[in-house]
């Protein structure tokens, strides 16, 4: 009697577990089937085409792939050192009494809903970029990143928003990792007369390599997929340009904006195709990150 209940229980949990595999397969399938029309119509040019024109019926995903990768990568490049700095601050520099409190503050950032950050972005950050940041950056307009005029809704604002959103993710992983660096390794170096910076640079960081990598990749996955906050501040114009002050578009933003209004089969199918691209990119990135984290815990 009891045996069969054990097996039954195991079976139930197994079914739910396998359900997740089935779910992922269904997601892929649905996205793929519904984008077939577009893929068949454009072939490889769907991924490489530079033109996205609902008017002419030509749909190429390149501007959005560019925008997604551009914003996520630059945000990551800036957020990474910031996260390390904050993680060190929280584990070593901050007064012990305040550490919990300050950590909570950083983790609260991750809790703020994306749409609220977008709200703040439209009404506060975008005008700030337009009125204060851009005139400041105009001095550096010889750098191709900072040329042109802006209305506040541009790649730069989106990047700032992304930095703000992915830093807490990396910070919490890094903080855990730095805390787990064995004290005797650090003390050995301190005993030799090293400064805190040198200890961090030569012990903590190399020791936590894998965690750093995992954190980077997970944050990157998040940045690639972030939808609402980016949609509200990015300016909604497909643009393959180096100028960060130009309005732009990402995969997630164009889907959010245009999905409900696409009137013909090809248009809808192309948008779902963009969703497929986005899903594959973020899925692969997250998979790599998880595998690295798994290797870390061995």
């Amino acid at each position: 009697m009891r045996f069969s209940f054990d097996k039954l229980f195991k079976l139930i949990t197994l079914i739910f577990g396998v359900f997740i595999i089935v779910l992922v397969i269904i997601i892929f399938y649905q996205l793929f089937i519904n984008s077939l029309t577009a893929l068949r119509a454009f072939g490889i040019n769907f991924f490489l085409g530079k033109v996205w024109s609902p008017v002419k019926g030509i749909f190429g995903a390149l501007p959005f792939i560019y925008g997604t990768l551009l914003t996520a990568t630059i945000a990551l490049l800036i957020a990474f050192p910031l996260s390390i700095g904050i993680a060190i601050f929280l584990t070593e520099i901050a007064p012990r009494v305040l550490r919990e409190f300050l950590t909570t503050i950083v983790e609260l950032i991750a809790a703020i809903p994306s749409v609220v950050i977008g709200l703040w972005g439209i009404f506060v950050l975008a005008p700030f970029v337009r009125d204060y940041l851009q005139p400041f950056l105009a001095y550096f307009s010889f750098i191709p990143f900072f040329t042109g005029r802006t209305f506040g809704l541009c790649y730069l604002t989106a990047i700032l928003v992304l930095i703000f959103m992915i830093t807490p993710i990396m910070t919490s992983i890094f903080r855990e990792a730095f805390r787990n660096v064995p004290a005797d390794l650090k003390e050995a170096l301190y005993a030799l007369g090293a400064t805190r910076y040198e200890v961090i640079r030569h012990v903590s960081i190399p020791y936590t390599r894998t965690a750093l990598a995992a954190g980077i990749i997970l944050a990157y996955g998040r940045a690639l997929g972030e939808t609402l906050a980016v949609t509200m501040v990015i300016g909604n114009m497909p643009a393959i340009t180096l100028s960060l002050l130009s309005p732009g578009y990402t995969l997630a933003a164009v889907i959010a904006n245009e999905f409900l209004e696409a009137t013909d089969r090809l248009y809808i199918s192309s948008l779902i195709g963009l969703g497929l691209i986005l899903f594959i990119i973020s899925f692969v990135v997250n998979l790599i990150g998880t595998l690295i984290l798994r290797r870390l815990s061995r």
Partner: protein
Amino acid sequence: MIIRKIKDKLFTLFAIASFIIVSLPLFHIILTIIVNGIGAINLEFFIALPNPPGVPGGGIVNAIEGSIILVCLTMLISFPIGFFGGIYLAEYGKGPLAETVRNLTNSLSGIPSIVAGIFSYTLIVIYFGFSALAGAIALSLLAIPYIVRTTEEALKAVPNDIREAGLALGLPRWKVTLYLVVGAAKPRILAGTLLAVARIIGEAAPLLFTAFGNPFYTYSIFEPTDALPLLIFNYALSPYPDWHLKAWGAALVLIIIVLSINLTVKYYVQREGK
């Protein structure tokens, strides 16, 4: 020697500066929301349905009801899946099948919220129409990996002594797992579920083309519904100043809910840890 000291000081400065750079916007956001949103908060805000633009007054009770319905429905769908899936991974989780489940779950956790919306649209909306159900299914895609991971970690953190003690007393395996181990891990599982709730109550992207929005009360899960983040999104992009005010008010309500949940969970977990 001096250079080394300077590098050290610079680094310390950098660390402090990073913290300030990143926490300043947080305070500014919260401050802005409070300052802008407090003007919208009154009793009518929580009780009344929205008025057309230009007509003063009105409230957001449709969004509040919608958010409640969506959260309940999403938890109803995703909690069993996540809970039992987590149990599977924690208790029976060795071997290639379990590994695959684990890896796929974690990869699913990164799904862009808009893709969850598209998925629900192609599967549900086309056949059943815009509905709270479609919205809940989209939100479940986001919640399930979260709950699986939380449950698995919570169960793994329960020391083996409990399991062995239960088995030694003659309890069948399933009772050991379901009653003893889960019982011991209950606080953590609860905490994780609450965090999942905090996460999905603030998501609007999956709802854009599933829940559709509704300026009246929702009476059925097969009907469209509004939600707090969806309302914020729509009102923020409208040209009416009174709707902007309501968007800030709704943002204030949302952020109070989300931050309360997060802080409560944190406090609770800290207490358990001691």
